[in-house]
C-alpha cells in the first residue's frame, strides 16, 4: 500500500479540514497529548474531539488515550465506506465519566483498506474489527483472528461496501461448505473432545453456536460463533427515513420485552442529530415505560438463568414469567403491543396514557405493589438457596479489569463492581430528576450478576413509582406528548453522532452519519450483548461445562441483538 490515506481523505473534506473544534479546552489538551499523531481534527456531535490518525498509528494513539488520558472504554468500532476512502471510527469513553468521549477516525485507502488493529489495546476490538472486516471489508493488521463473524465463511463480498453486488447468488453447496474444523478434531488419540453447543441446544438462549473443546467435564477452549440471526438490521435502518420508518426496527434487536429501551437509543441519537427537544411530559412517559421494559427484561433474565442452573422448568421460571407478564400487561395498556411496541416517536411518544387515566395508574400501581413480595420470593427461592449459591458463587469470574477491556456494560459490568450506568452518568430522559440508585456488586461472579438484576428491578420500581406520581399530577393543559418535528427530517450532510442509552443489557449505542437525505448514510448499532458475549471465553475456560452454561445464562444475551 503506497497511497497516503491523508491525501485521499483530504479530497472531499476541504470544508471541514480547518474547522475549529468546539469542545474547547479538553479537546485541545488531548490534541496536545497526541501531538503529531493527529492528522486532522474532525467534529462529531457527541464527542469532545474526533481525531483523524494514520492507519499505522492506531495502536500508539489508542495506547496514549487509554493510559494517559484515561479512556478505558472502547464502546464501539464503526466502519464505513465513503466514495474515496474507508474509515474505521473507534468511539472511546471513560468508565468513570461516559460523557467524556473521543472518536479516533482512521481513514484507509480505497484500493487496499488496511489499518492497524486495536485489539492489543482493547480486547473488545477483536470482534468489532471482525465485524468491520466482515461487513465493510477493512483489513486489520496484527489482528489475532481476522475471520468473518456474522456471515458464513463462504460469503462472497462485503455487504456494506459500495461495490457489493446484492444480486450475486450466495448459495454454496454442502461440499464447498466443508467444515474447516474437521481435520483438527478427527484425532482419535486426542484426550479432548470437540463439542458443538448450539445453535440448536436448550441452553444457548437462541441460535448461538459455541465451539467448545472439552477435556472430560472441563472446558479447555470455547469459541462463540454468532451470526445465525443476522438480519442486516443496520442496512435496513439505512434504507428507512428518519421520521417514521426506522423506529419499528429497534424493537426487533433485543426482542425480549426490552423494545422501548432500544427505541430510546434510536430516538436519542436521531434527536441529537436533528436537534429536537423532547417535552418533559413525554420524557416522563418514556422513562416510566422504559423502566417497565427493564423489569420485564430482567425478570426473564433471572428466570432463564434459573432455568440454566436448575435444569428444568421450575417454579422460579414460572414466577419470573408471571411478573414479566404483569409488566407486559401494563405496557400493553400503554402501547397496544406486548413486545413490538413502536411507541416512541422522534420528539416524544405516539400517544398519551390511555383513558381512563386513573384506571391505568391503578393497574400500574397494583403491579408495583406486588413487586416487593415477588422479589422477596426470588430471594427466598433463589438467592438464599444453598445449592444455588454453591453453583453460582465464585463461578464465571469476570474481574473488573477484564470486563473493562472487553467493553462489558450493564449488569455484567455492575456485577463486577464497575460503577457505571448511563442513566446516571450521561443523563437523558427524566432520570436525573428522580431519586434512585445504581446497583453494583463486587462479587464478579454469576451470583453477583443475578443479584444486580434482582436489585435493579427494585430500583426500576422506584423510578416508575415516581413517574406515576408525576404523571398523575401533571397539569392537564401541559401534556405535550410530541415536539413539533418536521414531516421530513434531513439533517445537515456529514453530521456524525454516536449516542447511547442504558438498555436492559448495557450500553446500547447508535452511530448515525447523515448525508443530507432523509435516510442515514451509515447506521451502526453498538449492541451491549455483542460486547458482553465476548467475555464468555474468559469466564468459562478451565471451568466445568455446567459453569459454562451458567456463565452464558448470567450474561443474559439476546441473539437478536448480538447478530442484529
Amino acid at each position, binding site marked *: 500500500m503506497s497511497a497516503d490515506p491523508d491525501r485521499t481523505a483530504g479530497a472531499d473534506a476541504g470544508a471541514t479540514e480547518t474547522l475549529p473544534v468546539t469542545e474547547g479546552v479538553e479537546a485541545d489538551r488531548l490534541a496536545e497529548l497526541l501531538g503529531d499523531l493527529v492528522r486532522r481534527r474532525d467534529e462529531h456531535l457527541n464527542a469532545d474531539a474526533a481525531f483523524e490518525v494514520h492507519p499505522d498509528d492506531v495502536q500508539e494513539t489508542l495506547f496514549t488515550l487509554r493510559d494517559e488520558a484515561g479512556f478505558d472504554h472502547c464502546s464501539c468500532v464503526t466502519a464505513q465506506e465513503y466514495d474515496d476512502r474507508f474509515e474505521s471510527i473507534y468511539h472511546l469513553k471513560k468508565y468513570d465519566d461516559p460523557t467524556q468521549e473521543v472518536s479516533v477516525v482512521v481513514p484507509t485507502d480505497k484500493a487496499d483498506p488496511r489499518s492497524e488493529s486495536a485489539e492489543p489495546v482493547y480486547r473488545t476490538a477483536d470482534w468489532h474489527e471482525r465485524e468491520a472486516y466482515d461487513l465493510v471489508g477493512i483489513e486489520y493488521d496484527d489482528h489475532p483472528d481476522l475471520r468473518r463473524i456474522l456471515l458464513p465463511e463462504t460469503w462472497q463480498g462485503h455487504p456494506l461496501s459500495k461495490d457489493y453486488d446484492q444480486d450475486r447468488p450466495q448459495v454454496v453447496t454442502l461440499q464447498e461448505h466443508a467444515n474447516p*474444523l474437521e481435520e483438527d478434531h*478427527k484425532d482419535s488419540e486426542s484426550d479432548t473432545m470437540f463439542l*458443538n453447543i448450539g445453535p440448536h441446544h436448550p441452553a444457548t438462549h437462541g441460535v448461538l453456536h459455541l465451539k467448545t473443546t472439552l477435556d*472430560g467435564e472441563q472446558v479447555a477452549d470455547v469459541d462463540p460463533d454468532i451470526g445465525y440471526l443476522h438480519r442486516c438490521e443496520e442496512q435496513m435502518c439505512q434504507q428507512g427515513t428518519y421520521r417514521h420508518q426506522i423506529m419499528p426496527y429497534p424493537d426487533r434487536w433485543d426482542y425480549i420485552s426490552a423494545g422501548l429501551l432500544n427505541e430510546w437509543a434510536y430516538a436519542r441519537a436521531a434527536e441529537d442529530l436533528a436537534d429536537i427537544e423532547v417535552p418533559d411530559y413525554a420524557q416522563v412517559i418514556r422513562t416510566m415505560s422504559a423502566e417497565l421494559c427493564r423489569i420485564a427484561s430482567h425478570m426473564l433474565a433471572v428466570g432463564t438463568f434459573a432455568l440454566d442452573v436448575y435444569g428444568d422448568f421450575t417454579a422460579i421460571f414460572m414466577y419470573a414469567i408471571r411478573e414479566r407478564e404483569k409488566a407486559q400487561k401494563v405496557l400493553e395498556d400503554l402501547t397496544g403491543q406486548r413486545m413490538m411496541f413502536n411507541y416512541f416517536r422522534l420528539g416524544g411518544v405516539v400517544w398519551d396514557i390511555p383513558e381512563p387515566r386513573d384506571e391505568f395508574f391503578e393497574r400500574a400501581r397494583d403491579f408495583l405493589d406486588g413487586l416487593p413480595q415477588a422479589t422477596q420470593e426470588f430471594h427466598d427461592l433463589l438467592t438464599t438457596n444453598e445449592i444455588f449459591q454453591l453453583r453460582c458463587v465464585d463461578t464465571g469470574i469476570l474481574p473488573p479489569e*477484564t470486563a473493562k477491556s472487553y467493553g462489558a456494560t450493564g449488569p455484567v459490568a455492575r456485577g463486577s463492581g464497575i460503577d457505571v450506568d448511563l442513566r446516571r452518568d450521561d443523563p437523558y430522559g427524566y432520570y436525573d430528576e428522580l431519586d434512585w440508585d445504581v446497583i453494583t456488586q463486587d462479587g464478579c461472579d454469576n451470583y453477583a450478576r443475578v443479584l444486580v438484576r434482582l436489585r435493579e428491578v427494585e430500583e426500576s420500581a422506584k423510578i416508575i413509582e415516581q413517574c406515576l406520581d408525576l404523571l398523575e399530577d401533571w397539569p392537564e393543559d401541559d401534556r405535550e406528548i410530541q415536539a413539533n418535528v418536521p414531516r421530513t427530517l434531513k439533517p445537515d450532510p456529514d453530521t456524525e453522532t454516536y449516542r447511547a442509552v442504558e438498555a436492559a443489557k448495557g450500553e446500547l449505542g447508535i452511530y448515525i452519519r447523515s448525508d443530507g437525505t432523509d435516510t442515514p448514510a451509515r447506521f451502526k448499532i453498538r449492541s451491549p450483548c455483542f460486547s458482553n458475549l465476548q467475555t464468555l*471465553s474468559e469466564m468459562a475456560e478451565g471451568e466445568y461445562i455446567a459453569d459454562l452454561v451458567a456463565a452464558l445464562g448470567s450474561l443474559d444475551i439476546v441473539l437478536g441483538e448480538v447478530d442484529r
Partner: protein
Amino acid sequence: MSHVSHWLAIGALAVIAVLIPMGMMLVSWLLRPSVPERDKRATYESGEVPTGTTRIRFNIQYYMVALLFVVFDVETVLIFPWTVIYRSALDAGASLTQVLAPMLAFIGILVVALVWAWRKGAVEWARSPRAEREAGDMAGRR
C-alpha cells in the same frame, strides 16, 4: 401345600419384564412409519455436522471414582452377612465386644483407606490439568 420357588417367580417376572417392552416394540413396529432420509439419520450435535468421534480416550475423572467403587462395594458385600446375624448372635449370648469389635476394626480399616483416598484427592472430581493450563495460557497472553 404347594410351594412355588421364589426364584421361579422372579424368573417369571424377568420373562414378563422382557415381554412387555417387546410387546410395545411390536405394537410400535406395526404402527410407525418409516421414511428413511440421510439428514434425519445424522448424529445430533446441536444442528452442526459432527466432527470427530465419540470413541475417544476418556478423561481420568471418570475412572477414579470407579476404582474406589470397586474397593468399597466389595467391602459392603462383606458387611451384609454381619448385619444379618448381628442381633441373633447377641441374643444367643455372644458379648457385645465379640460381635461388634471385629466389624468395627473392619470398618476402621475402611475409614483409614477412605482418609488416605481423601487426602490423595481421589474422592474429588479430578481437575483437568490440560484444561486449566490452556485457560492459564489464555489469561497469560492477555
